């Protein structure tokens, strides 16, 4: 019984939250890694792109709610998601046209593009704050729990409850669908193949008649989908605040680098590595240990390795370890 209780507590406080968070990070890191693979620079504006997509989705959600449209048990934001994706795709294509294309034609060094993306980041950040304000926004509605802690306790008779919030379930399901669709697209469609060819060897791809502008445009559209979905899921699960999204940049980049920049599979693995380490290291283990250890050994403290405020430190340390021992990442990304 004690063992079961410990397992349930572990699932409730570590396994499920970390899986949801990992899925969100993985989606974000996929966007970063795709841009890196095709456009060959680290996009610092990615966090703010996520914020922009989420903001549009929130605004449309509010509008739908004011019309009385809901999705029943599912959050209304799902209905608004396509609008958010469309707006983000338009925005990204416009930035590419106005800003990035010039440097691509110049064959500017990657680091110049990084600085340019910093400028885009400023503008997006200002735009989002300008439109929706810098404060916290909650926009989740519908059913709150798939399984609530109390139901679970009644069902099983255990002392520990297991709660699965609907946003967590939704995150995992959506992430699986999106990732599966992305991999199918990259592996089997003509366009996906041309993208991979372009990423592997630009000159060879150009010689075989692939239109680079088309590849770039499709990349931006895919990135818009990934960023908006990641942002909306994160916002539903936690809450939307422009500054938090900017700060997500660090774990997302850490995930992409840990997995190997430019490798989509690596981005997913990296997302989960970062999420699980963050949650396990900042979780207070007392609740689990109480069940596992005999009374005499019961810990007096919270058995928390690091306070939650240091979660950035966790992604950073993992990043440093990977950089030191395996600079190309777990899945052998590109190292230009």
């Amino acid at each position, binding site marked *: 019984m004690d063992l079961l209780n410990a397992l349930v507590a572990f699932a409730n406080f570590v396994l499920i939250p970390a899986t949801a968070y990992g899925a969100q990070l993985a989606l974000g890191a996929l966007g970063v890694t795709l841009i890196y693979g095709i456009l060959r620079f680290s996009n610092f504006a990615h966090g703010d792109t996520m914020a922009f997509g989420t903001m549009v989705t929130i605004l449309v959600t509010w509008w739908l709610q004011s019309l009385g449209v809901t999705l029943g048990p599912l959050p209304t934001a799902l209905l608004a998601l396509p609008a958010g994706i469309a707006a983000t795709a338009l925005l990204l294509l416009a930035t590419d046209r106005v800003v990035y294309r010039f440097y691509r034609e110049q064959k500017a060094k990657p*680091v110049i593009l990084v600085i340019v993306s910093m400028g885009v980041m*400023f503008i997006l950040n*200002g735009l989002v704050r*300008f439109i929706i304000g*810098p404060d916290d926004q909650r926009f989740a509605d519908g059913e709150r729990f798939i399984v609530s802690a109390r139901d679970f306790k009644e069902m099983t008779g255990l002392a520990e409850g297991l709660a699965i919030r609907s946003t967590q379930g939704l995150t995992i399901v959506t992430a699986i669908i999106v990732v599966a669709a992305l991999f199918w697209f990259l592996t089997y469609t003509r366009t996906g193949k041309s993208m991979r060819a372009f990423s592997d060897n630009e000159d060879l791809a150009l010689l075989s008649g692939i239109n680079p502008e088309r590849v770039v445009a499709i990349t931006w559209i895919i990135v818009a989908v990934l960023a908006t979905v990641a942002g909306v899921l994160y916002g539903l699960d936690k809450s939307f605040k422009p500054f938090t999204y900017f700060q997500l940049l660090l774990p997302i980049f850490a995930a992409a680098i840990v997995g190997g920049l430019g490798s989509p599979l690596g981005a997913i693995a990296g997302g989960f590595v970062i999420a699980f380490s963050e949650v396990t290291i900042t979780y207070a283990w007392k609740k689990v240990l109480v069940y596992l250890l005999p009374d005499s050994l019961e810990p007096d403290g919270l058995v928390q390795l690091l306070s939650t405020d240091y979660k950035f430190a966790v992604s950073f340390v993992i*990043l440093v370890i990977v950089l030191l021992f395996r*600079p190309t990442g777990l899945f052998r990304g590109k190292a230009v």
Partner: protein
Amino acid sequence: MTLREMGLFALVALLILGTGVVQSWNAALFILNYGLISAVMALGVNMQWGYAGLFNVGVMGFVALGGLGAVIVAMPPVGEAWAAGGLRALGGLALGLGVILGAVLIWRRLGRGRVRALAMIGWLVAGFFLFRAVFDPGVAAIEAVNPAATGYLGGLGLPVLIGWPVGGLLAAGAAWVIGKTALGLRSDYLAIATLGIAEIVIAVLKNEDWLSRGVKNVIGVPRPVPYEVDLQQSAAFVARADALGLDPVTASTLFVKLAYTGLFATVLIALIWLTQTALNSPWGRMMRAIRDNEVAAEAMGKDVKRRHLQVFILGSAICGLAGAMMVTYDSQLTPSSYQPLRFTFLVWVMVIVGGSGNNWGAVLGGFLIWFLWVQVEPLGAFLMGVLTSGMAEDSALRAHLLDSVAHMRLLTMGVILLLVLRFSPRGLIPER
């Protein structure tokens, strides 16, 4: 200096003087003093980016560490806290350092293989718990000492000017650690690593109450210049202010700000002289050669990684110095006020707009962008007021637009950065 450069500097001077005439001299001096600090930061970043092409987006962290340096040196020590747990906390820190050094030693001494990895992980885990066991009670004891007023170890009680170089040294130490790890890898990795260290430094300042009082802020950092109240009570000062036709209160605030201006200007001029000398010396030529073609420089026998580390540390130390100056000027350390957009990316805008690779350009960018950063908000408010004047008084859109003016500055800075990068990528004062 060419005529154009002098013209640009004269323009900035005119802008600041104009602020004095239109708004107030107090505001103008505020912009000038912060402009001096910004110029120092820009010089630091320019060393890294302009001389060596290193992409550091952790300026905020180095600036904050410099501020911590000023606090550690200048604040009076809290004797009670030292007695309660000071030695224990410091001992814990020393122990932590020993554990890390031990791990490095294990890694170097033992041969490749599973034994080494296991030994190191075991050592680190055991070391971590030992560290927490020694360190945590000390911290708890320190933080329990009068938490409303102190609750931290305090500083050394030395003059705050000593804190400036100490702040630079702290930043240099952090730069050494980062540089050792991330230099020599591709440039994006250094960017991410510095971004991370900056967030961690801020997290430490916010959470380690025993060190920096955390979000309770350290206030009343001693000043290197006289206090307004003392000046107002000094008969000689009041008489002199009267002679100039100023009332004592205004005169004292202006005097204090001017005194800071003098101090900061001294630092800036010394730094300009040093950086210019360095840039024109064989060392500077070598740095630029490495920046422009690493492979060729390496073939010529230059130790690229070592030089990069050197210039990275120097530039970060200058950022730390600027941070210590800023804390001294504000008389307080407020960890929650450190925002990456303000302290990292804004400094980058300064360097790029001013002209990367040119020290005068960085200084000009520091002043100009700081001026815009301060003035865009009132300007935007004015513009928005004009734009929305046609709307109904109670219109929600109008209220929203007027409220959002504060975010105009981010937008403006982004637009300026992109415009300069596109149409004048070498900045206002290009490298020669």
